[in-house]
């Protein structure tokens, strides 16, 4: 179990009108850890992400960052959305820049950060392209670049690779690991893919389908980057599969 005071304390319950979507979720996130939230489609993961990011106010309970209720205007939060969040009228460079603009960072300092982060995600040379000229994987990389160019207390990624093909997905998973190694951040990664979560996470929280409850918290102590065919990797993966069989529900399910 990681030690020290948690960076983020989540203690919420939430409903949308008639649907109880999160049935008392309670967990902590520690500094610089890579936490995966694993759950079937439709279990409320995106709601969870929005609550943690402060985009949504919980109906009951709260999300605290460094002891205070989370507030995107006060805290530095980066978020990579599930769908394409590139602004179509801005170039790649300007899409990354917008995060800095909002934080009030401009000038040569900003330019340097942008160039640096575009280099890291592998989009150097595409600064002046428009989103309609680049592929889906590249658009997500723009969103990731945007997320990394600010010094954030928290980075949330909501199923960022869901709409990508298998090969790009694998490449991006490795990339995210590499970037997070380089720029130490507290990361919450949301997915419905068991292998992805075991590959990336320091710690994993498995959710049931809606109304969502935490089934189990699992620590993965294997060294990174992980070998997906390694017996220990596979045994963890299998144990999670078994867990989720119990709560396998109608909509979505695990992959």
């Amino acid at each position, binding site marked *: 179990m990681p030690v020290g005071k948690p960076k983020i304390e989540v203690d919420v319950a939430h409903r949308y009108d008639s649907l109880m979507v999160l049935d008392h979720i309670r967990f902590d996130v520690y500094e610089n850890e890579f936490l995966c939230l694993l759950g079937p489609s439709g279990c409320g993961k995106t709601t969870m992400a929005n609550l943690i990011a402060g*985009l949504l106010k919980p109906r009951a309970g709260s999300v605290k960052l460094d002891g205070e209720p989370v507030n*995107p205007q006060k805290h530095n*939060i*980066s978020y990579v959305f599930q769908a394409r*969040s590139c*602004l179509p009228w801005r170039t790649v460079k300007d899409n990354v820049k*917008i995060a800095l603009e909002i934080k009030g960072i401009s000038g040569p300092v900003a330019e340097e950060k942008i160039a640096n982060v575009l280099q890291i995600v592998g989009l150097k040379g595409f600064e002046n392209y428009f989103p309609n000229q680049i592929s889906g994987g590249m658009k997500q990389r723009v969103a990731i670049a*945007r997320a990394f160019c600010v010094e954030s207390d928290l980075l949330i990624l909501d199923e960022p690779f869901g709409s990508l093909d298998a090969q790009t997905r694998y490449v991006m998973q490795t990339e995210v690991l590499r970037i997070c190694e380089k720029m130490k951040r507290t990361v919450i990664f949301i997915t419905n893919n068991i292998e992805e979560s075991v590959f990336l996470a320091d710690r994993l929280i498995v959710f049931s389908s809606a109304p969502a409850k935490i089934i189990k918290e699992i620590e993965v102590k294997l060294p990174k980057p992980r070998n997906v065919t390694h017996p220990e990797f596979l045994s963890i993966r299998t144990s999670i599969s078994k867990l989720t069989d119990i709560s396998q529900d109608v909509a979505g399910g695990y992959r």
Partner: protein
Amino acid sequence: MAKAEIAPVEASQISELKNRIGKSSRVSRRLKIYVYNMITVGIFLMAWAIIQNTTTSSYFPTIGGVGKAAVELATKGDIQGFSLIQHAWASSLRVLSGFGLALVMGVTLGLLMGLYPSIYENSKVIIEPIRFIPPIAWIPMAMVLLRGFTRYVFIIWVGAFFPIFISVLTSIPRVETILKDSVKVYGGSRWDILKKIVIPSVTPEILAGARIGLGDSWMCIVAAEMIGGEPVGVGRLILKYADLLNMNAVVVGMILVGVIGLACNEVVLQIERRLFRWRSQITL
């Protein structure tokens, strides 16, 4: 099973693809469009000639007659001495004023009511019926309440305001939430969201509404000038010669309106093309 003969790719094609510069294909495309447009004009003239020779009406405007009238109007002006340019200028000024005012007000009110829909919802019972009154129906009001230049500006404003207003109003709820959230999560205020997301998002639609509004304005000017009272203006020109049953000159007036309209449309289109390079769709 017979296989279709597919020619293998040749080395020369590959080297051509690698060396082709983008610009030349764009130029030749433009050229093709001009040529095809000229051909369309030719077909139109042929159709006109056919009707001209088969019609029994002695008033039907002939190609030759229109040509002569055009030359005469261009060089000597109309029977009151006003030149074509004076007519065109007078009308254009009225349209631009009415349209400009409508653009500013339409965008402002559209943004306001789009962002605060309760204002619109609570005043719908007045706005919607007014919207449906055609500009032409406002002419008697304009005649009675206003004088001179303002008469025309008012009619044109009525024609141009509503398309722009509705375009802006309806495009605001369509701004994608994920884009707004992208700014919100990094700490953007409502003003940031408005400036950086909403306005760039709706600008294409504003321009589309403006193009429609401009077209409507031109339709209104002719009607307005026919009744307006001042001796200059393309609408007035058309009516003057219609009174004299000089259909050839009437057609010249019609063509003038059409040409100015085409020019306006092209200007807006070029603005659209320049502003919206990021769109993958083709604007017509």
